């Protein structure tokens, strides 16, 4: 081919790069590995992740749920995982119809009217929701509580730091573990949005209807964030409670933990705000022969057309993970999502009641919870959890002192449908030992 183009060598392909800018040595990266060597290397590194093999009660924004076998089979189909963003609808109808179904499922679960094609994850979806609330209300303050996932709060702060938005934090109630009363009290005429996570970082369910009323009375929006999307199978939808924007981490729906990503952000809102939504939207369309199809739509909100005036800079989103969530939700279906949620709540209640009876342990918050709750132990949680991990092979939870140094003995315990009674009994036994 070089000859066909009259080039003497591969080097000549790069003649347009000035000589002094060319790398005159090989890259200082390792030589090529064969498949056998490569897999061996990664297996060895994987084996150094002791946390991956344990009985686990860790949640805090990433959850262990049952993943039906067919999810990964569908994801692994070439036609889905090696396709690009569906810019050519005639040969992308598979991806487009999947996204349309995904948008519909997100609306059904959240009780909202419009959902987008996905965001990077729950944390960035929440940050984008705050930016959107500013666009809708033209106000510059957002109020959130300290019972929001600490990493989500950090991400909001990063996103709004140059947008002229002030994020005000209000404390949660030390008795209930809830924050809706404090949030409702902190609203004023400058508030663009109340931001509430429910179930919150401590697992407590908030009174969303009360917050929606409080927000709307002052002309603000209510943004509801959900890290444990499985809770939607049991809890009243934020939409039914009056929320204006609902964001969620969709990892619970068929996505492996994978050390924090890739996950998928869900983003839903009211129809009247559809033109302010960030990211991609898929809509129904027809061809000349009247055949139904789907296309990317309302693109005039987006960066490739509006450039600096776009509603967001997002381009690539989490298409394949949205597919995983769609396959999951359709496989589990109307009954399965409710049953999984029911089992989570029942098993968590079983665990919490038993732990509360253990000598030296307490459940400090009285607020209602779904499948996560805070446990106050007899000593420093970091040490207790490290010991149980190492000696008993159980990850009993997440030490809250990692985020809140003033809570040395507290840890967050999460129970899902994947935890058998035997595992829960073992947890109770090792905590008591």
């Amino acid at each position, binding site marked *: 081919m070089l000859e066909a183009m009259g080039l003497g060598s591969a080097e000549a392909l790069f003649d347009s790069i000035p000589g002094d800018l060319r790398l005159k040595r090989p890259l200082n990266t390792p030589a090529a590995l064969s498949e056998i060597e490569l897999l061996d290397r990664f297996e060895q590194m994987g084996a150094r992740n002791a946390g991956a093999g344990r009985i686990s009660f860790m949640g805090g924004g990433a959850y262990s749920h049952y993943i039906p076998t067919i999810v990964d089979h569908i994801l692994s189909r070439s036609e889905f995982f090696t396709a690009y963003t569906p810019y050519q609808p005639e040969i992308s109808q598979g991806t487009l119809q999947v996204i349309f179904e995904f948008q519909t499922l997100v609306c059904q679960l959240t009780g909202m009217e419009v959902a987008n094609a996905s965001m990077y994850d729950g944390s960035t979806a929440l940050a984008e929701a705050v930016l959107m609330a500013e666009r809708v209300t033209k106000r510059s303050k957002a109020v959130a509580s300290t019972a929001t996932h600490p990493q989500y709060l950090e991400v909001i702060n*990063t996103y709004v730091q140059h947008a002229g938005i002030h994020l005000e934090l209000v404390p949660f109630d030390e008795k209930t573990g809830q924050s809706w009363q404090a949030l409702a009290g902190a609203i004023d005429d400058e508030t663009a949005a109340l931001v509430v996570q429910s179930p919150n970082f401590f697992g407590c369910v908030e009174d969303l209807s009360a917050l929606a009323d409080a927000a709307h009375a002052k002309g603000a929006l209510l943004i509801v964030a959900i890290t444990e999307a499985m809770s939607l199978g049991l809890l009243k939808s934020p939409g039914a409670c009056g929320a204006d924007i609902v964001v969620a981490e969709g990892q619970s729906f068929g996505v492996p933990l994978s050390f924090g990503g890739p996950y998928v952000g869900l983003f839903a809102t009211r129809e009247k705000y559809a033109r302010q939504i960030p990211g991609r939207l898929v809509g129904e369309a027809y061809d000349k022969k009247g055949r139904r199809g789907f296309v990317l739509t309302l693109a005039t909100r987006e960066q490739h057309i509006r450039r600096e005036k776009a509603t967001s*800079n997002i381009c690539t989103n989490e298409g394949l993970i949205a597919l995983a969530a769609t396959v999951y939700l359709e496989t589990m279906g109307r009954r399965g999502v409710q049953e999984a949620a029911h089992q989570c709540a029942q098993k968590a209640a079983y665990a919490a009641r038993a732990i509360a009876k253990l000598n030296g342990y307490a459940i400090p918050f009285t607020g209602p919870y779904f499948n996560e709750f805070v446990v106050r132990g007899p000593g420093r949680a970091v040490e207790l959890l490290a010991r149980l991990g190492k000696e008993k092979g159980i990850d009993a939870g997440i030490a809250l002192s990692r985020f809140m140094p003033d809570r040395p003995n507290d840890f967050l315990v999460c129970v899902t449908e994947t935890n058998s009674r035997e595992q829960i009994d073992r947890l109770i036994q090792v905590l008591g030992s």
Partner: protein
Amino acid sequence: MTITKATTHISPNEQLIFERSQTGRIGYRLPALDVDEVELSIPNEFRRDDDLEGMPEVSEVDVIRHFVRMSTWNYSIDLGMYPLGSCTMKYNSRLNEKVARIAGFANLHPLTEEHDAQGALQVIYELQQHLAEITGLPGISLQPAAGAHGEMTGIMIIRAFLDARDGAAASHRRTMLIPDSAHGTNPASAHLSGFSVKTIRSTAEGLTDLDHLRELCAHGEVAGLMLTNPNTLGLFERNIKQICEIVHEAGGLVYMDGANMNALVGIARPGDMGVDVIHLNLHKTFSTPHGGGGPGSGPCCCTKELEPYLPVPRIVKSSDSTYGLDYDQPKSIGRVKAFFGNYGMMLRALSYTLTHGNDGLREATEAAVLNARYVAAGLIEDYDKPFAGAPMHEVVFTDKKQTRKGVHTLDIAKRLIDYGFHPMTIYFPLIVQGAMLIEPTESVGRQELDQFIAAMKSIAVEAVENPELVLNAPHDTRVGRLDEAAAARKPILRWKPE
């Protein structure tokens, strides 16, 4: 001219899942609840009362057929050449997929304590080392989830650096310079970081206009420049060193959009050109799958000087060879995403660099550029090539020769579908009227390139002899051209029961 189609499309019928749903059908089984049921702490008014009405009720085989049928409506890399310019649609190795599914990674919770996640942190650290070497920029964070997210991160780093360097005076330095050929994400990311945008013209040659750059830099409020190199016309900005010097002398920094790094890996390094910060797209250059629109991964690499501003946590290696998380970075712009970024993409990218090795990475670049050059040479007589310069990994043509018969870029792209190819990127960059941006990547051989060239040549003939054929394309897909204007006027964005 007779043409062998690269692929043909099959088109089974399939409804929406909601239209397939039958009350009472299920496709899952959970173990029976093995604890005694108790009254939950959740009051009734906090519980759903809609019984999730409308959500599908289907069997497992319903779900499988549903998705497999829909999948057949998609074009994909595994079916054939996918020459989307600026998107780098290269082969996604199955080995990388296998690596990402190793239980020690797939089942690892992101809040696992560091000592129980040493292998996972090692993967991040090693990939960081490779990417730092490839870009020549030693500071690195893998936290951004996609290219635009990496851009936002990079531009916020520039802003934080300037604010620290200039103090209150930095408030006068709020202009980001962006060429008229840039990706739309560039100005959108600059805006998110509180910058206003000024556009730099391109020369007739297709390169950054140095005089215009100097003129814009003379105003004194320039915070930086966002530049893609090779640029979106597929041309290497040969004055890049001078461009960086001009911006630096004006007190600004240079951000490089790394979308086109597939032209440079192993050949030239942005850090050696004077670039201060860059994002990479692991889902382009490093072969992680596009997945129908993500997940991506947009690592941000920068100079030593900018390193303190990278997102937290940083992943570090201590003297005893253990890996850890460093949150103690007071100058950091903060966290841009929960946890560590799109970790599964990092596993795949590390698998890519390790299976290619340093030689293989360079060879891939050579093949990518060679293939683009071959397409450029093959189409030069049939299509208008607006810039004479030798292209790197992608080449831009226009529809200028075809418009006389009323055939435009969109029509050529749609007709290409009938020949079994995915079309090239069209109408981008915006500065080229009727642009067709073709990036073959290294993942096609000469035979397929010849087939693509023959298809394009055939379309050029059809545009003259039978323009209707091209104007009404595609002819054999599941749906024809959809009425996008009507879809946007009255958007239907979800299914609702009749």
